């Protein structure tokens, strides 16, 4: 995953664990630039920022110091830094927890904010606007990347804590000194010296997505030392010269491994070396003078490595398919786009501030099961038919289409019509997944039905997740649960009950 849970140290406090970094032109106003960092993988509805972490996004001017196999991006010494601190919780009259914070701007001004305030807060001059709070996770990963197998989005319906800075590009970033920038984000603990030594410099940091979880700790490589914690202790824009050879070799080995994941060699050794060199300098490149769009991510690096002037502003938008862009580059050197099992995150980004989609409501879950005396194959031969009419509450079932995507229309005994879509089926594993299209007071309804062996018999698991719509959560849970139980109970006389 992008930078989700990327080292033993960062697992300590999830609110210090950075997941992603973004840099793009404001969709609302092209004269403004948006920088954003996400923390806390799979944050729940009440998640809060740590009160002792310094959450920072730092930007430096960059110059192209070499092209082709000598490609190099050189950071300036000066840093444009946005630094966020949050307080302990206060409680309102109703007992609801409120968290406030402060953003320290690059010129020393301070901007107070309240977490989860949708409109954020702006400086009186209007040159900077900030937001902090829970949002839908914009990152999506829909692969088992070690074996290049497509999966549904592994981060579907998850949330993150998000920090957004929107600034007037000209006044804050000063593009007159150059329009190319490199950005990083970091979480910095208090820098007090303890009894046994100095504090660590940072808990986590990020430049380009997947530096740690895919490039340094390539899941396709076996028996390798986990370098992620060591990497997280490096100083952004200044990786230890002593350790550079170690990281560089790992990056080269990693790219070579990615290259062969599809069995075809698409990279020349010298290109691997040059790319590893560029990736060793880990910052998110963006150019405010050129267009940044959903497809421009990594274009600056790729063009420069190819010896061409770059055409876009690179960066990373909220909706950029960063994992597939990266995977395609590493695995086949952009020969053929690799599209994973999802075409977007749970929710797309927004065109208005704070640009990151509202948080996902927690899904309701219903799960029922029954243990039967018959073999899994016998049970599956009945209930594994998507168009089968085995459920006692169904009067008629008709199918439209075939294979994945087919629709079944169910007419229930009480005269209601329900339409469901087959999303996945695995006959060998006796598993199917479907979604609801119409006929139930729900949204985001996904259900799975599965038959597994148990002893000499079998167990049938039927579960669903959904958001209730036009009905209370409780009412919908009761309805779905009753539906499942009635169906599963009807299997007992047919197949016998497991002893």
């Amino acid at each position, binding site marked *: 995953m992008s930078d989700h*849970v990327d080292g*033993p*140290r960062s697992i*300590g*406090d*999830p*609110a*210090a664990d950075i997941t992603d970094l973004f840099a793009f032109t404001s969709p609302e106003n092209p004269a403004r630039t948006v920088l954003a960092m996400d923390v*806390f993988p*799979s*944050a*729940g*509805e*009440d*998640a*809060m*920022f*740590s*009160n*002792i*972490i310094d959450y920072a996004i730092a930007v430096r001017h960059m110059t192209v110091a070499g092209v082709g196999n000598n490609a190099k991006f050189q950071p300036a010494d000066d840093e444009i830094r946005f630094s966020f601190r949050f307080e*302990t*919780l206060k409680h309102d009259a109703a007992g609801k*927890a409120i*968290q406030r914070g402060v953003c320290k701007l690059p010129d020393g001004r301070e901007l107070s904010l309240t977490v989860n305030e949708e409109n954020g807060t702006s400086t009186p001059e209007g040159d900077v606007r900030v937001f902090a709070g829970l949002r839908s996770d914009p990152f999506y990963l829909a692969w088992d990347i070690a074996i290049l197998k497509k999966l*549904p989005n*592994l981060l*579907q*319906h*998850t*949330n993150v804590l998000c920090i957004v800075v929107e600034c007037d590009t000209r006044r804050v970033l000063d593009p007159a000194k150059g329009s190319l920038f490199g950005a990083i984000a970091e979480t910095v*603990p*208090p820098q*007090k010296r*303890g*009894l*046994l*030594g100095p*504090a*660590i410099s940072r*808990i986590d940091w990020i430049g380009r997505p997947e530096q740690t979880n895919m490039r340094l700790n390539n899941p396709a490589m076996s028996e390798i030392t986990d370098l992620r914690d060591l990497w997280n202790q490096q100083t952004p824009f200044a990786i230890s010269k002593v350790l550079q050879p170690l990281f560089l070799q790992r990056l080269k080995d990693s790219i070579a491994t990615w290259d062969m994941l599809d069995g075809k060699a698409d990279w020349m050794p010298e290109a691997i070396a040059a790319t590893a060199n560029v990736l060793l300098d880990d910052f998110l490149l963006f150019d405010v003078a050129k267009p940044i769009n959903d497809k421009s991510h990594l274009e600056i690096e790729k063009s420069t490595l190819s010896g061409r002037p770059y055409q876009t502003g690179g960066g990373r938008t909220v909706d950029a398919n960063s994992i597939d862009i990266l995977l395609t580059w590493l695995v086949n050197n952009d020969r053929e786009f690799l599209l994973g099992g999802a075409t977007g995150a749970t929710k797309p980004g927004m065109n208005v501030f704070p640009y990151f989609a509202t948080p996902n409501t*927690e*899904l309701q*879950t219903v*799960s029922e*099961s029954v243990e039967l005396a018959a073999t899994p194959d016998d049970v599956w031969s009945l209930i594994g038919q998507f168009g089968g009419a085995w459920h006692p509450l169904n009067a008629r079932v008709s199918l439209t289409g075939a294979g994945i995507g087919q629709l079944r229309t169910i007419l229930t005994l009480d005269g209601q019509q329900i339409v469901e879509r087959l999303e996945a089926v695995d006959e060998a594993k006796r598993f199917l997944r479907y979604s609801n299209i119409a006929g139930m007071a729900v949204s985001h309804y*996904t259900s*799975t039905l*599965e038959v*597994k062996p*148990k002893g000499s018999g079998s*167990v049938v*698991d039927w*579960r669903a*997740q959904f958001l209730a719509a036009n009905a209370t959560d409780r009412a919908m849970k009761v309805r779905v649960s009753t539906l499942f139980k009635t169906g599963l109970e009807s299997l007992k006389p047919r197949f016998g009950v497991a002893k």
Partner: protein
Amino acid sequence: MTSVAEVEHPGPAATDGEIAAINLESACRGAWARFAQDPRLPGVAEEIVDSERLASQFLGDLDVLDRLDLLASKFARADDSSRAPLVQAEVASAAHRFDDARGYLARAARTGAPREAIERQALAIDQACGVELDAVLAARRGFAKASGRLEDLVPLGALLADLERFAEADTVYRRALFSYDDVSPFPLAWVCFQLGMLWGELAAVPDPALAAIWYRRAIDYLPGYVKARVHLAEIYASQDRMGDAEALLLPALSSRDPEVNWRLADVLIAQGRFEEGERQLDAARSGFDQLLGRHLLAFADHAAEFYAGSGNDRRRALELARTSVANHPTRRAVKQAQAIAVIGGEAAAASGLHEACGAGMPV
């Protein structure tokens, strides 16, 4: 032993305990939601086990073991890899069902689980059961030396304390505390609590004042730390500071941990508030009964202590203590059973316990 400078040193800074507790619950709910989407998602079942165990250890959430049982059975049905028996083993260990846990680890080995994951769990079981302690100590020292991390140092300290090497345990715990460089308050509160236990209950010559400092510090890191509140309240009560003890226990009542009701009952009765005290004792009895009905092995030792004292049922206390010894014949478990037998005037039983457990006793 802890130097004054170290006790006075504020210790590493950590995220506020209230925020950390909210975030733990938040992360746990998020993991359960993902588990419901697909139980086989990489790392999710394991994350739930970790989060739920934290909730049990620090926040006194007594429903954790039920939820973990549910998780283990659902996961085992959904996943046919070696992950499932590893999770089942961890859940069984959490409920002190060590024989079951060993069985699951054997299955994990047969299904190709990573050797290190199996060995780590087996080590924890051996330590909890007080067997092969020389080998456990060597392994713990090895892990602690290799990583120097808190999560390896604290189990080493706990083992040294079990072996009554208190000064060495103290040194290891302090190293764990002051070498911690993350910002989660849970590990820090854990070490402080262990130091409180070391000097309040385990050391040959207890130092309640020092123990109280460590328990207080654990609560400072994590105000919702139920067990630290209970232990500190016991010290306050022994010093006749009933008001302070009551103030510590009242916020912990919401955890529904019967030990809170029990200690609060003692504090109330000591203040002459018999009716309130009796109500709390009834709640404690009922709470322990419910827990024992669901997870006998997990709560046998605590319940034995309750029934040997304010619970006033020595026969039951001895039964529970014997159950506990049979399940994990550690030095502490045997001592507890012997003490209960002696209080109950069952000298023969006490002697029998000693003999019965002699072979398995740690040395």
